[in-house]
């Protein structure tokens, strides 16, 4: 049988994702790719392989999987309960998935998007330079129970049983934002109000964008109501007709006519994508110079992720078959050596 990952059960909205496709903006196709690009980098670091490998993105709910050959896997992004043949495995770590074993992944404990990476990456058909499903554009399709996903040869070098400390991003927080072409449509009072408001992530949200709720008055701009459709980039914060902000993510449309108050830094977009419903999010404007500096630091951090991974320290209380280990074979009466020399 081919080297593949069999899907026995799949949560809704499960798709194959990589870093997306660039270069098709002129044709109306946005880059798409993993909603949480940091989770892709973390998985690549854990498995010691390139960030270009395709992974399985699980939107709030996991599934059940079986490998047709021994594989290495890594689990990153929104933490979910996972087990291999009934034995609990920890998140943000790499593990062995032996041939025939069942990997079971439950719902997200916090955050939204969990990721299952396999050594060698998922090798589904490349379309327009990427394997990412872009459902809004009609590229690819959701992963369903019964699918068998081809897996590439594993050339990674890392051992399994490695873990990393993930960047905290699953319960909202501060989003840094730069001014954009339409920021001036909003009055200084509106901007100040915008920065001091605690928004909550609405239940309405997907890979295209996330709506934020606000109590009290919205942020509608009079001047912005009749703007000509203009280029959209991921991170843009649209103020929609009802005055609520809508933060656009990687699968957004390429142009839009709602006024935009600014653009969230790419470094903070995983925090937007992963904020669970009800999480509090706040915005803070930073200068373009600071933003470039922040992005540069983030880039270096991603380059160095490999150095941050550590062997997992197993908690004996979590080892289900602890008593089957030979824990006392080294214990002696203390006089063995003396006896031997006699």
């Amino acid at each position, binding site marked *: 049988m081919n080297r593949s990952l069999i899907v026995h059960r799949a949560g809704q909205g499960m798709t194959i994702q990589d870093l997306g496709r*660039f*270069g*098709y*903006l*002129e*044709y*109306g*196709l946005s880059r798409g790719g993993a909603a949480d690009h940091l989770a892709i980098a973390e998985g690549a670091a854990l498995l010691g392989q390139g960030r270009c490998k395709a992974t399985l993105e699980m939107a709030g709910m996991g599934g059940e999987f079986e490998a047709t050959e021994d594989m290495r896997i890594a689990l990153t992004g929104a933490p979910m309960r996972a087990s291999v043949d009934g034995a609990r495995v920890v998140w943000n770590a790499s593990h062995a998935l032996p041939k025939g074993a069942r990997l079971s992944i439950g719902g997200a404990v916090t955050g939204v998007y969990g990721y299952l990476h396999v050594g060698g990456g998922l090798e589904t058909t490349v*379309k*327009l330079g990427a394997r990412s499903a872009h459902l809004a*554009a*009609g*590229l690819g399709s959701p992963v369903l129970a019964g699918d068998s996903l081809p897996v590439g040869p594993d050339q990674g070098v890392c051992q399994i049983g490695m873990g990393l400390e993930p960047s905290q991003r699953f319960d909202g927080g501060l989003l840094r934002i*730069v*001014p*954009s*072409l339409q920021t001036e449509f909003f009055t200084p009072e509106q901007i100040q109000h915008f920065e001091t408001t605690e928004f909550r992530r609405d239940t309405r949200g997907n890979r295209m964008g996330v709506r934020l709720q606000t109590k009290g008055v919205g942020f509608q701009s009079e001047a912005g109501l009749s*703007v*000509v*459709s*203009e*280029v959209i*980039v*991921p*991170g*843009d914060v649209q103020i929609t007709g009802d005055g609520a902000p809508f933060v656009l993510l990687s699968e957004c*449309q*390429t*142009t839009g006519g709602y006024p935009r108050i600014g*653009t969230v*830094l*790419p470094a903070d977009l995983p925090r937007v994508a992963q904020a669970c419903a009800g999480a509090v999010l706040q915005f803070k404007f930073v200068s*373009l110079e600071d*933003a*470039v500096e922040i*992005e*540069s630091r983030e*880039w270096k951090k991603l380059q160095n992720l490999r150095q941050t991974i550590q062997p997992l320290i197993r908690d004996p209380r979590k080892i289900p078959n602890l008593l089957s280990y030979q824990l006392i074979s080294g214990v002696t009466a203390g006089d063995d050596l003396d006896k031997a020399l006699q």
Partner: protein
Amino acid sequence: MPLSSEWPRLCTLGVDGFLVQFGDRLSEQANRAALTFRVALESQNWDGIEETSTSLVSTYLRFDPQWQTHADLRVMLKGLLAQQDWFTGDLPTGRRLWRVPTVYGTTMAPQLDEAARAAGMTVDEAVASVSQSRVRVQTIGFAPGQPYLGELPQVWNIPRQTALTDKVPEGALAVAIQQLVLFSVTTPTGWRHIGQTAFRLFRPETEQPFVLRPGDEVIFVSTSPETLTQMKRDADGGATFEVIT
């Protein structure tokens, strides 16, 4: 207005992009400027440029700030902008003129009557007006490969419907605000469905997934429902093109 000293305007878009705006509302000149400037920009082969595109009235440029600073790029863009009057220059060469067979009205395009009334014309006048207009792909957006075309005669400055049509099929030709949209997917819309083509605009399974490019021109030639049905077997739905020289 395009020719005032206010335009073009240069601003940043996100952390890694610039937008050169040639107006704040759609006009033939602003669209011409955006298309022409983009081609000039691409031909510079500047370091660190990752992607360019156009919207209705602007040229967008995405770059790698690790390679190129905002300050340097701003100077370079201003220098290039100063080289000519982009509003009146010749459009880029290599563009194509497409003739796309279109069924106007009938059950295939049920809102022709309504659109003609809104424009103050008879149905025949409306068909003659649209089918004889040579329109330009002003931009592609909303869905992959989907063009916004214009501009139509002033009489077509009709608003979008307040209520959405539940669904128009792929290949539907719809009108509002002196523009046409040719739909690349089945979608709800506020534009009025006046014609139907068999032209597939997005073909992800092929080497050339996108058919139209910004700046291409199109004539939606009137045809009969029977002819169009036959043309459905053709990959281009009977559409043909010639390169504009």
